[in-house]
């Protein structure tokens, strides 16, 4: 059963309480039940009001059933599904007595839309209260009347903001924009509800939710209420969406289009338009990919390793960070932002100052964007201290080293840490490619050593690669995973191997880009091919951002371990020899010193001038197939078991386009046979062994399998 009905003092109550689940979901079944319940009520003359409540803790209704949406393959089918929901919510709207949604937790997607169909929304001060329409994140638009009702309740601008960003808002904001009519304490909720119903029946609140809305004045009013003003809002929204999505994501654009039309329609036509839009989008590959990634990221966000469920993570109140530079400062900032006391150690005050600068910058930005108040930012920042010695490390629960990528230095650092920290301290390395196992040989208790690989910039990149050695204990792993989650990041767990997953795959790709550059003399074009593909930046700009010295160092490590396929194109060395390190030194492949970044013309002087023409498709194949081949090798070597981990890693670690569904999901969509054939073709045509498809791929092809088993 999804819902029950009861009555008290002539007030009807529909209670959502989904069996065997922590949340309520508006599945087709539940919608049918709701419909039946409403049919019973529609002719009741004796009822004074209807309440819609949830029995779930911290949840009103979490949304529609994504599994059902996932299965939609025909646009008409999707539109029909949406209409079925719309019709039932219309029944709520048509009841002749007042309807009140009592929101004491999250009300998302369909849950939000159900609340919108009610006359009143009464919420509690529960900090878990969130309301919003996150549909665009899954590649479709709201389908249960959200695009029609929300702009009429909160005004056009606020509604578009909510629909297009897909970001839920908290109770205070919802009250401010008129989405909630009242917020009451959780304590004595029943009494508050009674009083609210009394206020309504006594006529203290206007019945029509659309008339109840306060008309805005001045320019905001012009934008909300005047058709010309509306036009400006729609145009501006489209522009912003295009800027943000670069046109890769159709859902937000569709949402603007739908609202731009149904804002002026009656309910019947308006809802029909929305249902059609929903159906069209729900069947797209992009939506399917985004849904896949939603599930995948949910799984990894809450990742727990089989066999470790009974282990309780150790409490972490104090961390040490070794190496205070930009990375160390970024890590310290992140730790401090979660209220963890953080001690940065480095060898000079100047280095520590760099760490403070990096952390301070993130907080300053957050204050500027009003994400934090000045007081809170200062309080968090005060969690960071600097030191030239190991004082304050003895009581650290967790230490992350981010010193230079040099094995000898790392080893000596681990040796020192092992002496200065306590027995319970976990010692983690933020290395991007070096062997954690080798470092762990230096310490008294290697079971306490683990890799904790952040991506730059730390506060923005959502991925952490957790690297386990053969010695790493489950306790160490569990505590590390808990820390990743506390920091709001998504972990993937990989075995210790040079470059782990993300950098290994990424550097194969950058390496290949270097070869293409040397063959064709095209630099911006290659970057463009990849940004057109959906990568946030092309391989050469990425090299500049990372720093050529850093990238090359990792490439050497990989070459040492995996051989010639990681041999860097000579252009990397040549640029480095001229002293250009990339963005941090002003110039690399690009000249970053001028306002509109341009190709660093010195690059041309460093190459032969015998070029072949760039074939864009071949360029894309070479770059993407190289990544797929390398990823398959990682699976072959069992560095990770789940191909999903690679997709999570590439999306959250490198910005691989989510709408393509992740690297290996994309490989599946290309077809394994196609991937193998293309690789073999490249191998032959370019006479380059590096393209030889790995055994794992060949096996998949021979067994007619894909990376991800089909349901």
């Amino acid at each position: 059963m999804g819902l029950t009905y009861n009555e008290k003092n002539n007030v009807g109550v529909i209670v959502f309480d989904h069996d065997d689940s922590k949340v309520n979901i508006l599945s087709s079944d539940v919608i049918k039940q709701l419909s039946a319940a409403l049919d019973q009520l529609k002719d009741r003359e004796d009822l004074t009001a209807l309440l819609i409540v949830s029995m779930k803790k911290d949840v009103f209704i979490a949304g529609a059933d994504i599994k059902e949406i996932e299965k939609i393959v025909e646009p008409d089918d999707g539109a029909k599904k949406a209409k079925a929901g719309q019709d039932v919510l219309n029944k709520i709207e048509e009841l002749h007595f007042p309807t009140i949604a009592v929101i004491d937790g999250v009300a998302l997607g369909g849950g939000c839309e159900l609340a919108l169909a009610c006359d009143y929304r009464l919420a509690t001060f529960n900090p878990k209260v969130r309301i919003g329409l996150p549909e665009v994140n899954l590649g479709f638009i709201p389908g249960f009347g959200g695009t029609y009702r929300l702009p009429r309740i909160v005004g056009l601008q606020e509604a578009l903001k909510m629909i297009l960003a897909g970001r839920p808002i908290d109770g205070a904001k919802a009250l401010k924009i008129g989405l909630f009519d009242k917020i009451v304490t959780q304590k004595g909720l029943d009494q508050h509800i009674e009083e609210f119903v009394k206020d309504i029946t006594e006529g203290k609140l206007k019945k029509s939710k659309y008339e109840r809305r306060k008309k805005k004045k001045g320019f905001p009013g012009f934008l909300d209420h005047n058709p010309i003003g509306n036009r400006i809002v729609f145009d501006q929204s489209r522009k912003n969406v295009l800027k943000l999505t670069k046109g890769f994501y159709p859902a937000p654009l569709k949402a603007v289009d739908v609202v731009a039309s149904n804002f002026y329609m009656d309910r019947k036509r308006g809802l029909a338009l929305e249902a059609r839009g929903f159906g069209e989008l729900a069947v797209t590959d992009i939506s399917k990919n985004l849904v896949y990634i939603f599930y995948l990221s949910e799984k990894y966000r809450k990742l727990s390793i089989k066999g470790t469920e009974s282990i309780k993570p150790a409490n972490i109140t104090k961390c040490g960070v070794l190496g205070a530079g930009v990375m160390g400062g970024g890590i310290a900032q992140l730790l401090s932002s979660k209220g963890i006391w953080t001690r940065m150690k480095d060898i000079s005050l100047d280095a520590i100052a760099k760490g403070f600068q990096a952390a301070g910058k993130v907080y300053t930005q957050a204050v500027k964007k009003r994400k934090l108040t000045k007081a809170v930012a200062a309080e968090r920042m005060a969690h960071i201290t600097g030191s030239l010695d190991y004082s304050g490390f003895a009581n650290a629960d967790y230490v992350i080293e981010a010193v230079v990528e040099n094995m000898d230095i790392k080893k000596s650092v681990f040796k020192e840490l092992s002496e200065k920290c306590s027995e319970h301290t976990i010692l983690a390395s933020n290395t991007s490619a070096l062997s954690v196992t080798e470092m762990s040989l230096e310490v008294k208790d290697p079971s306490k050593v683990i890799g904790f690989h952040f991506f730059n910039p730390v506060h923005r990149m959502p991925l952490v690669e957790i690297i386990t050695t053969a010695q790493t204990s489950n306790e160490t792993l569990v505590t590390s995973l808990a820390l990743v989650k506390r920091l709001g990041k998504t972990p993937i767990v990989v075995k210790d191997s040079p470059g782990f997953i993300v950098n290994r795959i990424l550097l194969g790709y950058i390496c290949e880009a270097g070869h293409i550059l040397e063959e064709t003399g095209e630099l911006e074009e290659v970057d463009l091919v990849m940004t057109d593909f959906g990568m946030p930046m092309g391989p050469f700009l990425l090299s500049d951002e990372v720093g050529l010295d850093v990238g090359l160092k990792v490439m050497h490590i990989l070459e040492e371990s995996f051989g010639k396929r990681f041999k860097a194109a000579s252009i990397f060395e040549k640029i480095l020899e001229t002293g250009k390190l990339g963005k941090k030194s002003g110039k690399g492949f690009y000249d970053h010193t001028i306002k509109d970044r341009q190709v660093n013309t010195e690059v041309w002087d460093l190459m032969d001038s015998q070029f072949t023409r760039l074939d864009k498709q071949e360029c894309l194949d070479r770059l993407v197939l190289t990544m797929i081949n390398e990823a398959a090798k990682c699976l072959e070597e069992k560095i990770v078991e789940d191909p999903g981990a690679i997709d999570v890693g590439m999306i959250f670690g490198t910005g691989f386009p989510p709408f393509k569904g992740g690297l290996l999901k994309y490989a599946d969509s290309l077809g394994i046979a196609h991937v193998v054939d293309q690789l073999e073709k490249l191998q032959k045509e370019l006479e380059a062994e590096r393209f030889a498809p790995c055994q794992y791929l060949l096996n998949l092809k021979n067994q007619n399998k894909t990376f991800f088993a089909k349901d």
Partner: protein
Amino acid sequence: MEKIVVVNGIRTPFCKMGTDFNNLSAQELGRIALRELIERTPFELSELDEVIIGCVGQPADAANLARVVALLAGIPNEIPAFTVHRNCASGIEAAVQAAIKIRANEGTCYYVGGTESMSNIPFYLKKSLQDQLALLQRAKTMGQRLKIMVPFFKRYLNPMASLEIGLKLGLTDPVCGLNMGQTAEVLAKEFGITREEQDDFALLSHQRAIEGREVLKEEIVPVIPAPKFKKGVEFDNGPREGQSMEALQKLRPFFDRRSGSVTAGNSSQITDGAAMLLIMTESKARDLNLEILGTIKEFAFSGVEPNRMGIGPAHAIPKVLKKANMKLSDIEAVEINEAFAAQVLACLRALESDQFTKDFGCEGYTGVIDPSILNVNGGAIALGHPVGTTGARLILTMLKHLERKNLNTGLVSLCIGGGQGAAVILER
């Protein structure tokens, strides 16, 4: 009676007003020092009873500054904190409060200290201007408004005419109407202390502070000041490398331009800084296996005329010796805060004088203080005098000195604006 020990202490560098710490508030300076002390001391915060911090120019945006500092430094919510104010002895007052509480069996462990940002003491609107602003707010018609505003603008075109400088107010005694420098002039004239003697004393302070740089570094935590975090500050910036008699002699008397002898050069500097100490009972320190820096043996305060406030130490020193049943000759090292060279020299003269001893009935507790054991690493003339901090700094500096030189007994004393003296006997 159980011994009261100082386990550890730390301070920020002292930086002249308007220099490196210009943008750090008193609470931020205090926070930095206290947090660093916590980091450096293997002491579980759950053992702590209270945090007590002295501050003179208590910031309006940090009411009960000690609580603000404690929370920002990571002291658990359950542990209370309060701020103390005994003018220039606020830092000592904090330590003394802890000692008194320990003696009264109120608790066993206290973080104490002082913090001051003289760069951030605000300017105030003059009362007459405040009144006019209030009138302006109440005015209803344009005519009324104009009537107030025209003379208002005429009068207050010069912004300084409408402001009072908080620092100046704080350094002026409201009872006798003299500012601190003028009280030093009173003593200089009473004891016949020449300009040259004062300048000599000031020069020595700078020379000793420069020489003691590496030594003082032991008690300092380098600070990388927000908001830019540009560079670390490791040393006090008051001591002048090439300070000379010629340079000192060139300065004009600041407080009595015609007939005075007290100059900016032979007065303490106006400075920002914080110092913190961890104080507990000896048995507790032993239980927790903590190394002990030294012991607070005895303390005393005494009162004098506000216009002779600088003579305070000459009264507090015999008083504390009497309380401890010790003689001045038992003391192996002395710190008398150098608010003004004239005032320190006046205290030395008074303590040497039989007349003084007789007048105040402190026979047996006065005598000569050997200049070679007085302020051996320089004093406030070179290092600066962040008023609320200095008392805690003197305890810290003295204990580190005793440890370094393997001495047993030290005495620290300060004069206190408003006419008081403070003295504390420390032991190892």
